Protein backbone atom coordinates (compact mmCIF):
# COMPACT_ATOMS: atom_id res chain seq x y z
CA UNK A 1 0.00 0.00 0.00
CA UNK A 2 1.32 3.38 -1.05
CA UNK A 3 1.94 5.70 1.79
CA UNK A 4 0.71 9.23 1.27
CA UNK A 5 1.35 11.36 4.33
CA UNK A 6 -1.05 13.86 5.81
CA UNK A 7 1.48 16.61 5.00
CA UNK A 8 1.36 15.66 1.33
CA UNK A 9 -2.42 15.85 1.33
CA UNK A 10 -2.21 19.28 2.95
CA UNK A 11 0.32 20.47 0.40
CA UNK A 12 -1.74 19.23 -2.55
CA UNK A 13 -4.90 20.83 -1.20
CA UNK A 14 -3.06 24.07 -0.64
CA UNK A 15 -1.78 24.07 -4.24
CA UNK A 16 -5.38 23.49 -5.39
CA UNK A 17 -6.64 26.24 -3.09
CA UNK A 18 -8.83 23.81 -1.16
CA UNK A 19 -9.31 24.03 2.58
CA UNK A 20 -9.92 20.54 3.98
CA UNK A 21 -11.38 19.54 7.32
CA UNK A 22 -9.47 16.93 9.32
CA UNK A 23 -12.02 14.36 8.27
CA UNK A 24 -11.73 15.19 4.59
CA UNK A 25 -7.96 15.12 4.78
CA UNK A 26 -8.14 11.66 6.30
CA UNK A 27 -10.52 10.47 3.57
CA UNK A 28 -8.35 11.83 0.75
CA UNK A 29 -5.23 10.44 2.30
CA UNK A 30 -6.70 6.96 2.04
CA UNK A 31 -8.09 7.56 -1.47
CA UNK A 32 -4.83 9.00 -2.80
CA UNK A 33 -3.01 5.97 -1.50
CA UNK A 34 -5.46 3.65 -3.28
CA UNK A 35 -5.07 5.54 -6.54
CA UNK A 36 -1.32 5.18 -6.33
CA UNK A 37 -1.73 1.47 -5.64
CA UNK A 38 -3.72 1.10 -8.85
CA UNK A 39 -1.02 2.93 -10.78
CA UNK A 40 1.60 0.70 -9.18
CA UNK A 41 -0.11 -2.31 -10.75
CA UNK A 42 0.47 -0.82 -14.20
CA UNK A 43 4.09 -0.37 -13.32
CA UNK A 44 4.55 -4.14 -13.36
CA UNK A 45 4.05 -4.19 -17.13
CA UNK A 46 7.03 -4.06 -19.46
CA UNK A 47 6.77 -0.71 -21.29
CA UNK A 48 10.31 -0.72 -22.62
CA UNK A 49 9.28 -0.29 -26.28
CA UNK A 50 6.14 1.76 -25.71
CA UNK A 51 6.51 5.49 -26.38
CA UNK A 52 4.95 7.77 -23.75
CA UNK A 53 1.33 8.56 -24.60
CA UNK A 54 0.29 12.18 -24.39
CA UNK A 55 -2.78 11.94 -26.58
CA UNK A 56 -5.00 9.01 -27.51
CA UNK A 57 -6.57 10.62 -30.58
CA UNK A 58 -3.83 9.63 -33.00
CA UNK A 59 -3.91 13.12 -34.49
CA UNK A 60 -1.20 15.74 -34.87
CA UNK A 61 -1.01 19.32 -36.15
CA UNK A 62 -4.59 20.39 -35.63
CA UNK A 63 -4.14 24.00 -36.65
CA UNK A 64 -6.13 27.09 -37.50
CA UNK A 65 -5.26 29.95 -39.85
CA UNK A 66 -4.08 33.21 -38.33
CA UNK A 67 -7.17 35.20 -39.22
CA UNK A 68 -8.87 37.32 -36.57
CA UNK A 69 -12.30 36.13 -35.45
CA UNK A 70 -13.46 38.67 -32.86
CA UNK A 71 -15.79 37.25 -30.25
CA UNK A 72 -17.96 40.36 -30.24
CA UNK A 73 -19.48 39.85 -26.82
CA UNK A 74 -16.57 40.71 -24.58
CA UNK A 75 -18.90 42.77 -22.44
CA UNK A 76 -20.87 39.62 -21.54
CA UNK A 77 -17.70 38.02 -20.21
CA UNK A 78 -16.98 41.01 -18.03
CA UNK A 79 -20.58 40.92 -16.77
CA UNK A 80 -19.76 37.56 -15.14
CA UNK A 81 -16.98 39.04 -13.06
CA UNK A 82 -17.62 39.11 -9.32
CA UNK A 83 -16.31 42.66 -9.35
CA UNK A 84 -15.37 45.09 -12.08
CA UNK A 85 -14.16 48.63 -12.47
CA UNK A 86 -14.80 50.21 -15.86
CA UNK A 87 -13.47 47.82 -18.50
CA UNK A 88 -11.33 45.98 -15.95
CA UNK A 89 -11.78 42.93 -13.76
CA UNK A 90 -11.29 44.03 -10.18
CA UNK A 91 -9.38 41.70 -7.85
CA UNK A 92 -7.82 41.79 -4.43
CA UNK A 93 -4.55 43.66 -4.36
CA UNK A 94 -1.65 41.59 -5.65
CA UNK A 95 1.72 43.24 -5.71
CA UNK A 96 5.26 41.99 -6.10
Amino acid sequence: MANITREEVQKISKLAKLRLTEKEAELYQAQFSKILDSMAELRQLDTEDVPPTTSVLGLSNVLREDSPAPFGEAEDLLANAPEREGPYYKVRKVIE
Partner: protein
Amino acid sequence: MAEYEMVIGLEVHCQLATKTKLFCGCATDGFGAVANTRVCPVCTGQPGVLPVLNKRAVELAFQAALALDCKLADVSIFARKNYFYPDLPKAYQISQYEQPFSQHGRLECRLKDGAAKVVRIHRIHLEEDAGKLLHAIGSEELDHSLVDFNRGGTPLIEIVSEPDIRVSDEAYAYLTALREVLIYSGASRCDLEKGEMRCDANISVRLKGAEKFGTRAEIKNLNSFKNVKDALEYEFRRQVEIVESGGKVVQETRLWNAEKMATFSMRSKEEAHDYRYFPDPDLVPLEAKPAWVAALKAGLPELPAARRARLTSEFRLSSYDAEVLTSKKEVADSFLETMKLLAPEDAKALANLMLNTADFSPIDAPRMAELVTLTRRVITVNKAKELYPELRASGKSPKTLVEEKGLAQVSDEGQLREWVKAALAANPQAAADLRGGKERAIGSIVGAVMKLSKGKANPGLVNKLIKEAVNAGA
Protein backbone atom coordinates in the same frame (compact mmCIF):
# COMPACT_ATOMS: atom_id res chain seq x y z
CA MET B 1 36.69 41.30 -6.80
CA ALA B 2 38.83 40.47 -9.80
CA GLU B 3 39.11 36.81 -8.86
CA TYR B 4 35.38 36.17 -9.18
CA GLU B 5 33.38 35.76 -12.35
CA MET B 6 29.67 35.70 -13.04
CA VAL B 7 27.88 32.86 -14.76
CA ILE B 8 24.81 34.07 -16.58
CA GLY B 9 22.01 32.39 -18.47
CA LEU B 10 19.21 34.42 -20.01
CA GLU B 11 15.56 33.55 -20.57
CA VAL B 12 14.02 35.77 -23.20
CA HIS B 13 10.32 35.94 -24.03
CA CYS B 14 9.43 37.29 -27.46
CA GLN B 15 6.00 37.95 -28.86
CA LEU B 16 5.49 36.28 -32.23
CA ALA B 17 4.33 38.59 -35.02
CA THR B 18 0.90 37.03 -35.54
CA LYS B 19 -2.45 38.70 -36.05
CA THR B 20 -4.24 36.47 -33.55
CA LYS B 21 -3.59 34.78 -30.23
CA LEU B 22 -1.99 31.36 -29.84
CA PHE B 23 -5.16 29.34 -29.23
CA CYS B 24 -8.07 31.59 -30.28
CA GLY B 25 -9.03 34.12 -32.94
CA CYS B 26 -8.71 37.22 -30.73
CA ALA B 27 -6.53 39.96 -32.21
CA THR B 28 -3.07 40.64 -30.74
CA ASP B 29 -3.28 44.40 -31.33
CA GLY B 30 -4.48 45.07 -27.80
CA PHE B 31 -1.51 47.15 -26.67
CA GLY B 32 -2.88 50.57 -25.74
CA ALA B 33 -6.46 49.52 -26.57
CA VAL B 34 -9.40 49.64 -24.14
CA ALA B 35 -8.96 46.84 -21.60
CA ASN B 36 -10.70 43.50 -22.16
CA THR B 37 -11.79 44.19 -25.73
CA ARG B 38 -9.64 41.43 -27.31
CA VAL B 39 -11.01 38.56 -25.31
CA CYS B 40 -13.23 35.52 -25.85
CA PRO B 41 -14.38 32.44 -23.92
CA VAL B 42 -11.14 30.58 -24.82
CA CYS B 43 -8.59 33.13 -23.60
CA THR B 44 -10.58 33.98 -20.50
CA GLY B 45 -10.83 30.31 -19.53
CA GLN B 46 -14.61 29.78 -19.64
CA PRO B 47 -15.79 26.21 -18.97
CA GLY B 48 -16.09 23.84 -21.91
CA VAL B 49 -13.95 25.68 -24.45
CA LEU B 50 -11.14 24.14 -26.49
CA PRO B 51 -7.89 25.74 -27.65
CA VAL B 52 -6.88 25.41 -31.34
CA LEU B 53 -3.27 26.11 -32.25
CA ASN B 54 -2.40 29.06 -34.53
CA LYS B 55 -0.53 27.76 -37.60
CA ARG B 56 1.27 31.04 -38.26
CA ALA B 57 2.56 31.15 -34.67
CA VAL B 58 4.08 27.70 -35.15
CA GLU B 59 5.65 28.73 -38.44
CA LEU B 60 7.19 31.88 -36.97
CA ALA B 61 8.44 29.91 -33.96
CA PHE B 62 10.02 27.30 -36.25
CA GLN B 63 11.64 30.04 -38.34
CA ALA B 64 13.04 31.73 -35.25
CA ALA B 65 14.51 28.39 -34.16
CA LEU B 66 15.99 27.73 -37.60
CA ALA B 67 17.50 31.23 -37.65
CA LEU B 68 19.14 30.42 -34.30
CA ASP B 69 20.61 27.14 -35.59
CA CYS B 70 18.34 25.09 -33.34
CA LYS B 71 17.25 21.53 -33.99
CA LEU B 72 13.50 21.11 -34.36
CA ALA B 73 11.99 18.22 -32.45
CA ASP B 74 10.11 15.75 -34.69
CA VAL B 75 7.27 15.88 -32.20
CA SER B 76 6.61 18.35 -29.41
CA ILE B 77 3.75 18.58 -26.97
CA PHE B 78 2.00 21.25 -24.96
CA ALA B 79 1.86 21.13 -21.19
CA ARG B 80 -0.09 22.90 -18.51
CA LYS B 81 1.85 24.93 -15.99
CA ASN B 82 -0.45 25.24 -13.00
CA TYR B 83 -0.53 28.20 -10.66
CA PHE B 84 -3.05 30.65 -9.28
CA TYR B 85 -2.64 34.27 -10.17
CA PRO B 86 -5.26 36.82 -11.22
CA ASP B 87 -3.61 37.41 -14.62
CA LEU B 88 -4.12 33.73 -15.51
CA PRO B 89 -7.85 32.99 -15.87
CA LYS B 90 -7.53 29.23 -16.47
CA ALA B 91 -5.23 28.87 -13.45
CA TYR B 92 -2.75 27.26 -15.84
CA GLN B 93 -0.58 28.55 -18.63
CA ILE B 94 -0.33 26.45 -21.79
CA SER B 95 3.40 26.05 -22.36
CA GLN B 96 5.85 23.33 -23.36
CA TYR B 97 7.85 21.43 -20.80
CA GLU B 98 9.35 18.01 -21.38
CA GLN B 99 9.21 18.10 -25.15
CA PRO B 100 9.82 21.65 -26.41
CA PHE B 101 9.72 22.21 -30.16
CA SER B 102 13.41 23.00 -30.43
CA GLN B 103 16.75 22.66 -28.69
CA HIS B 104 20.52 23.05 -29.07
CA GLY B 105 21.09 26.22 -31.06
CA ARG B 106 23.77 28.87 -31.09
CA LEU B 107 24.05 32.59 -31.60
CA GLU B 108 27.18 34.49 -32.46
CA CYS B 109 27.29 37.92 -30.81
CA ARG B 110 29.71 40.75 -31.39
CA LEU B 111 31.27 42.56 -28.47
CA LYS B 112 32.23 46.22 -28.43
CA ASP B 113 35.86 45.47 -29.26
CA GLY B 114 34.74 43.56 -32.35
CA ALA B 115 35.44 40.12 -30.88
CA ALA B 116 32.92 37.36 -31.46
CA LYS B 117 31.27 35.39 -28.67
CA VAL B 118 29.15 32.30 -29.22
CA VAL B 119 26.29 31.72 -26.80
CA ARG B 120 24.63 28.32 -27.03
CA ILE B 121 20.84 28.13 -26.94
CA HIS B 122 19.54 25.46 -24.60
CA ARG B 123 15.94 25.34 -25.81
CA ILE B 124 13.08 27.34 -27.30
CA HIS B 125 9.47 26.62 -26.47
CA LEU B 126 6.07 28.00 -27.39
CA GLU B 127 3.68 29.35 -24.81
CA GLU B 128 0.88 31.80 -24.23
CA ASP B 129 1.29 35.14 -22.47
CA ALA B 130 -0.60 36.05 -19.28
CA GLY B 131 -2.87 39.07 -18.87
CA LYS B 132 -1.75 42.39 -17.48
CA LEU B 133 -2.21 43.59 -13.92
CA LEU B 134 -2.64 47.22 -13.00
CA HIS B 135 -1.78 48.35 -9.47
CA ALA B 136 -1.95 52.10 -9.96
CA ILE B 137 -3.63 54.57 -12.26
CA GLY B 138 -1.07 57.18 -13.14
CA SER B 139 0.66 58.01 -9.87
CA GLU B 140 -2.32 57.03 -7.79
CA GLU B 141 -1.75 53.71 -6.01
CA LEU B 142 -4.91 51.55 -5.95
CA ASP B 143 -6.06 49.58 -2.91
CA HIS B 144 -7.01 46.74 -5.29
CA SER B 145 -5.66 45.42 -8.59
CA LEU B 146 -7.21 45.60 -12.06
CA VAL B 147 -6.91 42.91 -14.72
CA ASP B 148 -6.76 43.33 -18.50
CA PHE B 149 -6.81 40.09 -20.54
CA ASN B 150 -6.09 41.69 -23.94
CA ARG B 151 -2.54 40.33 -23.76
CA GLY B 152 -3.58 36.97 -22.27
CA GLY B 153 -3.06 34.17 -24.79
CA THR B 154 -0.67 36.11 -27.05
CA PRO B 155 1.88 33.73 -28.64
CA LEU B 156 5.38 33.84 -27.17
CA ILE B 157 8.56 31.95 -27.65
CA GLU B 158 10.82 31.56 -24.64
CA ILE B 159 14.47 31.31 -25.62
CA VAL B 160 16.65 29.84 -22.89
CA SER B 161 20.40 30.25 -23.27
CA GLU B 162 23.06 27.99 -21.82
CA PRO B 163 24.98 29.59 -18.91
CA ASP B 164 27.68 30.74 -21.35
CA ILE B 165 27.70 34.43 -20.54
CA ARG B 166 30.47 35.71 -18.25
CA VAL B 167 30.25 39.51 -18.19
CA SER B 168 27.39 41.98 -18.42
CA ASP B 169 28.60 43.32 -21.78
CA GLU B 170 28.21 39.84 -23.23
CA ALA B 171 24.62 39.75 -21.99
CA TYR B 172 23.99 43.05 -23.73
CA ALA B 173 25.63 41.81 -26.95
CA TYR B 174 23.62 38.58 -26.83
CA LEU B 175 20.31 40.42 -26.46
CA THR B 176 21.21 42.81 -29.26
CA ALA B 177 22.14 39.96 -31.60
CA LEU B 178 19.06 37.96 -30.62
CA ARG B 179 16.79 40.89 -31.30
CA GLU B 180 18.40 41.44 -34.71
CA VAL B 181 17.96 37.81 -35.74
CA LEU B 182 14.34 37.70 -34.60
CA ILE B 183 13.48 40.91 -36.44
CA TYR B 184 15.28 39.79 -39.61
CA SER B 185 13.60 36.39 -39.57
CA GLY B 186 10.24 38.12 -39.20
CA ALA B 187 9.38 36.01 -36.15
CA SER B 188 8.97 38.95 -33.79
CA ARG B 189 8.98 42.71 -33.98
CA CYS B 190 10.71 42.77 -30.58
CA ASP B 191 9.33 46.19 -29.72
CA LEU B 192 10.74 46.68 -26.23
CA GLU B 193 8.43 49.55 -25.43
CA LYS B 194 5.41 47.35 -26.04
CA GLY B 195 6.92 44.54 -23.98
CA GLU B 196 7.33 42.33 -27.05
CA MET B 197 10.75 41.23 -25.80
CA ARG B 198 11.29 40.56 -22.09
CA CYS B 199 14.26 39.11 -20.29
CA ASP B 200 14.89 37.23 -17.05
CA ALA B 201 18.46 36.55 -15.96
CA ASN B 202 19.93 33.69 -13.95
CA ILE B 203 23.18 34.65 -12.31
CA SER B 204 25.63 33.02 -9.95
CA VAL B 205 29.21 33.77 -9.02
CA ARG B 206 32.27 31.56 -8.65
CA LEU B 207 36.00 31.89 -8.36
CA LYS B 208 37.58 32.33 -11.75
CA GLY B 209 38.68 28.97 -13.11
CA ALA B 210 36.31 27.00 -10.87
CA GLU B 211 34.27 24.30 -12.60
CA LYS B 212 31.29 24.20 -10.32
CA PHE B 213 28.54 26.77 -10.58
CA GLY B 214 27.48 28.72 -7.49
CA THR B 215 23.87 29.01 -6.31
CA ARG B 216 21.95 31.19 -8.71
CA ALA B 217 19.38 33.90 -8.29
CA GLU B 218 16.79 34.64 -10.94
CA ILE B 219 16.26 38.31 -11.67
CA LYS B 220 13.00 39.54 -13.13
CA ASN B 221 11.57 42.88 -14.21
CA LEU B 222 14.36 43.70 -16.64
CA ASN B 223 12.56 45.75 -19.24
CA SER B 224 15.48 47.17 -21.17
CA PHE B 225 18.88 45.86 -22.25
CA LYS B 226 20.49 48.51 -20.07
CA ASN B 227 18.47 47.26 -17.07
CA VAL B 228 19.85 43.78 -17.72
CA LYS B 229 23.42 45.07 -17.70
CA ASP B 230 22.91 47.21 -14.59
CA ALA B 231 21.08 44.47 -12.71
CA LEU B 232 23.76 41.88 -13.49
CA GLU B 233 26.51 44.20 -12.28
CA TYR B 234 24.62 44.95 -9.07
CA GLU B 235 23.80 41.30 -8.46
CA PHE B 236 27.41 40.26 -9.07
CA ARG B 237 28.61 42.69 -6.37
CA ARG B 238 25.87 41.53 -4.00
CA GLN B 239 26.67 37.84 -4.40
CA VAL B 240 30.43 38.32 -4.19
CA GLU B 241 29.98 40.28 -0.95
CA ILE B 242 27.91 37.44 0.51
CA VAL B 243 30.46 34.81 -0.48
CA GLU B 244 33.42 36.94 0.67
CA SER B 245 31.88 37.44 4.09
CA GLY B 246 31.42 33.69 4.49
CA GLY B 247 27.69 33.61 3.73
CA LYS B 248 25.68 31.56 1.26
CA VAL B 249 23.72 32.83 -1.72
CA VAL B 250 20.09 31.77 -1.50
CA GLN B 251 18.35 30.37 -4.57
CA GLU B 252 15.47 32.79 -5.08
CA THR B 253 13.69 35.12 -7.45
CA ARG B 254 14.69 38.76 -7.19
CA LEU B 255 13.17 41.87 -8.73
CA TRP B 256 15.22 44.64 -10.31
CA ASN B 257 14.31 48.12 -9.16
CA ALA B 258 15.65 50.54 -11.78
CA GLU B 259 15.11 53.61 -9.59
CA LYS B 260 16.98 52.24 -6.60
CA MET B 261 19.46 50.45 -8.90
CA ALA B 262 19.21 47.30 -6.79
CA THR B 263 17.58 43.85 -6.73
CA PHE B 264 15.12 42.82 -4.03
CA SER B 265 13.96 39.40 -2.91
CA MET B 266 10.52 38.40 -4.18
CA ARG B 267 9.39 36.19 -1.31
CA SER B 268 5.86 35.62 -2.53
CA LYS B 269 7.15 33.49 -5.41
CA GLU B 270 8.88 30.99 -3.14
CA GLU B 271 6.18 28.51 -2.33
CA ALA B 272 4.41 28.79 -5.66
CA HIS B 273 7.21 27.00 -7.49
CA ASP B 274 5.37 23.70 -7.67
CA TYR B 275 3.85 23.96 -11.14
CA ARG B 276 2.72 20.33 -11.55
CA TYR B 277 3.27 20.33 -15.32
CA PHE B 278 1.38 17.72 -17.27
CA PRO B 279 0.55 17.23 -20.98
CA ASP B 280 -2.48 19.31 -21.96
CA PRO B 281 -5.20 16.80 -22.88
CA ASP B 282 -6.96 19.46 -25.01
CA LEU B 283 -4.13 19.68 -27.51
CA VAL B 284 -2.65 17.12 -29.88
CA PRO B 285 1.09 16.75 -30.57
CA LEU B 286 2.84 19.14 -32.90
CA GLU B 287 4.84 17.45 -35.64
CA ALA B 288 7.64 19.23 -37.52
CA LYS B 289 7.08 17.47 -40.83
CA PRO B 290 10.19 17.61 -43.08
CA ALA B 291 8.48 19.20 -46.13
CA TRP B 292 6.94 21.89 -43.93
CA VAL B 293 10.25 22.63 -42.22
CA ALA B 294 12.09 22.73 -45.56
CA ALA B 295 9.61 25.27 -46.93
CA LEU B 296 9.95 27.43 -43.81
CA LYS B 297 13.74 27.25 -44.02
CA ALA B 298 13.64 28.27 -47.67
CA GLY B 299 11.38 31.17 -46.75
CA LEU B 300 13.86 32.64 -44.27
CA PRO B 301 15.36 35.92 -45.46
CA GLU B 302 19.07 36.67 -45.34
CA LEU B 303 20.11 36.91 -41.69
CA PRO B 304 22.28 39.66 -40.16
CA ALA B 305 25.55 37.68 -40.08
CA ALA B 306 25.30 36.62 -43.73
CA ARG B 307 24.32 40.11 -44.73
CA ARG B 308 27.27 41.69 -42.91
CA ALA B 309 29.60 39.27 -44.63
CA ARG B 310 28.12 40.18 -48.02
CA LEU B 311 28.40 43.92 -47.37
CA THR B 312 32.11 43.61 -46.63
CA SER B 313 32.97 41.15 -49.42
CA GLU B 314 30.63 42.12 -52.26
CA PHE B 315 30.46 45.86 -51.59
CA ARG B 316 33.86 46.35 -49.92
CA LEU B 317 32.43 48.19 -46.93
CA SER B 318 34.39 48.31 -43.68
CA SER B 319 33.17 45.87 -41.04
CA TYR B 320 32.14 48.85 -38.91
CA ASP B 321 29.96 50.28 -41.70
CA ALA B 322 28.50 46.85 -42.41
CA GLU B 323 27.73 46.42 -38.72
CA VAL B 324 25.91 49.73 -38.39
CA LEU B 325 24.02 49.32 -41.66
CA THR B 326 22.72 45.85 -40.75
CA SER B 327 21.71 46.82 -37.23
CA LYS B 328 18.47 48.16 -38.70
CA LYS B 329 16.90 45.80 -41.20
CA GLU B 330 15.04 48.48 -43.13
CA VAL B 331 18.26 50.46 -43.62
CA ALA B 332 20.18 47.42 -44.86
CA ASP B 333 17.24 46.49 -47.13
CA SER B 334 17.27 50.00 -48.57
CA PHE B 335 21.04 49.86 -49.11
CA LEU B 336 20.79 46.64 -51.09
CA GLU B 337 17.79 47.82 -53.12
CA THR B 338 19.55 51.07 -53.97
CA MET B 339 22.78 49.31 -54.93
CA LYS B 340 20.86 47.43 -57.62
CA LEU B 341 20.52 50.79 -59.36
CA LEU B 342 24.09 51.96 -58.81
CA ALA B 343 27.61 50.92 -59.76
CA PRO B 344 29.66 48.90 -57.23
CA GLU B 345 32.01 51.86 -56.69
CA ASP B 346 29.07 53.90 -55.37
CA ALA B 347 28.69 51.59 -52.36
CA LYS B 348 30.94 53.63 -50.09
CA ALA B 349 29.21 56.92 -50.99
CA LEU B 350 25.78 55.39 -50.40
CA ALA B 351 26.87 53.93 -47.07
CA ASN B 352 28.31 57.29 -46.00
CA LEU B 353 25.14 59.08 -46.87
CA MET B 354 23.03 56.59 -44.92
CA LEU B 355 25.29 56.43 -41.89
CA ASN B 356 26.05 60.13 -41.58
CA THR B 357 22.59 61.53 -42.07
CA ALA B 358 21.05 62.29 -38.69
CA ASP B 359 18.08 60.02 -37.85
CA PHE B 360 18.30 58.33 -41.22
CA SER B 361 15.26 56.44 -42.37
CA PRO B 362 15.02 55.13 -45.92
CA ILE B 363 13.30 56.61 -48.96
CA ASP B 364 12.57 54.62 -52.12
CA ALA B 365 15.55 53.16 -53.98
CA PRO B 366 15.25 55.16 -57.25
CA ARG B 367 15.37 58.51 -55.42
CA MET B 368 18.15 57.32 -53.13
CA ALA B 369 20.18 56.22 -56.15
CA GLU B 370 19.57 59.56 -57.86
CA LEU B 371 20.77 61.39 -54.76
CA VAL B 372 24.01 59.40 -54.70
CA THR B 373 24.51 60.04 -58.41
CA LEU B 374 24.11 63.77 -57.78
CA THR B 375 26.89 63.71 -55.19
CA ARG B 376 29.29 62.62 -57.92
CA ARG B 377 29.18 65.99 -59.71
CA VAL B 378 26.25 68.20 -58.87
CA ILE B 379 26.09 68.60 -55.08
CA THR B 380 28.45 67.93 -52.21
CA VAL B 381 27.83 65.05 -49.82
CA ASN B 382 27.20 67.58 -47.06
CA LYS B 383 24.50 69.25 -49.13
CA ALA B 384 22.95 65.85 -49.82
CA LYS B 385 22.75 65.18 -46.08
CA GLU B 386 21.19 68.57 -45.47
CA LEU B 387 18.69 67.99 -48.22
CA TYR B 388 17.67 64.58 -46.94
CA PRO B 389 14.92 65.48 -44.43
CA GLU B 390 13.15 67.62 -47.02
CA LEU B 391 13.58 64.94 -49.65
CA ARG B 392 11.91 62.45 -47.34
CA ALA B 393 9.11 64.76 -46.35
CA SER B 394 8.32 66.18 -49.80
CA GLY B 395 8.45 63.05 -51.96
CA LYS B 396 10.10 65.14 -54.69
CA SER B 397 12.94 63.82 -56.80
CA PRO B 398 16.43 64.88 -55.70
CA LYS B 399 17.05 66.58 -59.07
CA THR B 400 13.90 68.66 -58.80
CA LEU B 401 14.71 69.70 -55.28
CA VAL B 402 18.30 70.65 -56.15
CA GLU B 403 17.05 72.77 -59.06
CA GLU B 404 14.31 74.42 -57.02
CA LYS B 405 16.73 75.38 -54.30
CA GLY B 406 19.52 76.36 -56.67
CA LEU B 407 21.91 74.01 -54.93
CA ALA B 408 23.72 72.66 -57.93
CA GLN B 409 27.45 72.55 -57.37
CA VAL B 410 29.49 75.09 -59.25
CA SER B 411 32.10 73.46 -61.46
CA ASP B 412 32.57 76.39 -63.80
CA GLU B 413 36.30 77.07 -63.65
CA GLY B 414 35.99 80.75 -64.50
CA GLN B 415 33.69 81.37 -61.52
CA LEU B 416 35.79 79.16 -59.25
CA ARG B 417 39.01 81.05 -60.17
CA GLU B 418 37.39 84.30 -59.16
CA TRP B 419 36.47 82.90 -55.77
CA VAL B 420 39.95 81.45 -55.32
CA LYS B 421 41.50 84.81 -56.12
CA ALA B 422 39.24 86.58 -53.64
CA ALA B 423 39.89 83.98 -50.95
CA LEU B 424 43.67 84.27 -51.32
CA ALA B 425 43.43 88.04 -51.12
CA ALA B 426 41.22 87.95 -48.03
CA ASN B 427 43.53 85.52 -46.18
CA PRO B 428 47.03 86.86 -46.73
CA GLN B 429 48.60 84.85 -43.87
CA ALA B 430 47.28 81.51 -45.13
CA ALA B 431 48.18 82.47 -48.68
CA ALA B 432 51.76 83.27 -47.62
CA ASP B 433 52.04 80.01 -45.67
CA LEU B 434 50.84 78.10 -48.68
CA ARG B 435 53.38 79.78 -50.94
CA GLY B 436 56.03 78.98 -48.35
CA GLY B 437 55.19 75.28 -48.75
CA LYS B 438 52.88 74.75 -45.76
CA GLU B 439 50.39 72.57 -47.52
CA ARG B 440 48.07 72.40 -44.56
CA ALA B 441 47.23 76.06 -45.02
CA ILE B 442 45.15 75.11 -48.06
CA GLY B 443 42.31 74.16 -45.72
CA SER B 444 41.48 77.70 -44.72
CA ILE B 445 41.56 78.89 -48.34
CA VAL B 446 39.18 76.06 -49.36
CA GLY B 447 36.99 77.05 -46.44
CA ALA B 448 36.92 80.65 -47.58
CA VAL B 449 35.96 79.61 -51.12
CA MET B 450 33.17 77.41 -49.78
CA LYS B 451 31.91 80.37 -47.80
CA LEU B 452 31.98 82.67 -50.81
CA SER B 453 30.17 80.05 -52.90
CA LYS B 454 27.63 79.32 -50.14
CA GLY B 455 28.83 75.73 -50.08
CA LYS B 456 28.29 75.18 -53.79
CA ALA B 457 31.86 75.14 -55.08
CA ASN B 458 33.07 71.76 -56.29
CA PRO B 459 35.66 70.98 -53.59
CA GLY B 460 37.87 68.80 -55.79
CA LEU B 461 38.18 71.49 -58.42
CA VAL B 462 38.70 74.21 -55.81
CA ASN B 463 41.71 72.33 -54.42
CA LYS B 464 43.17 71.95 -57.86
CA LEU B 465 42.64 75.59 -58.76
CA ILE B 466 44.15 76.90 -55.51
CA LYS B 467 47.31 74.89 -56.17
CA GLU B 468 47.44 76.17 -59.73
CA ALA B 469 47.00 79.75 -58.58
CA VAL B 470 49.75 79.45 -55.96
CA ASN B 471 52.16 77.78 -58.36
CA ALA B 472 51.46 80.50 -60.94
CA GLY B 473 52.59 83.02 -58.33
CA ALA B 474 49.24 84.54 -57.43
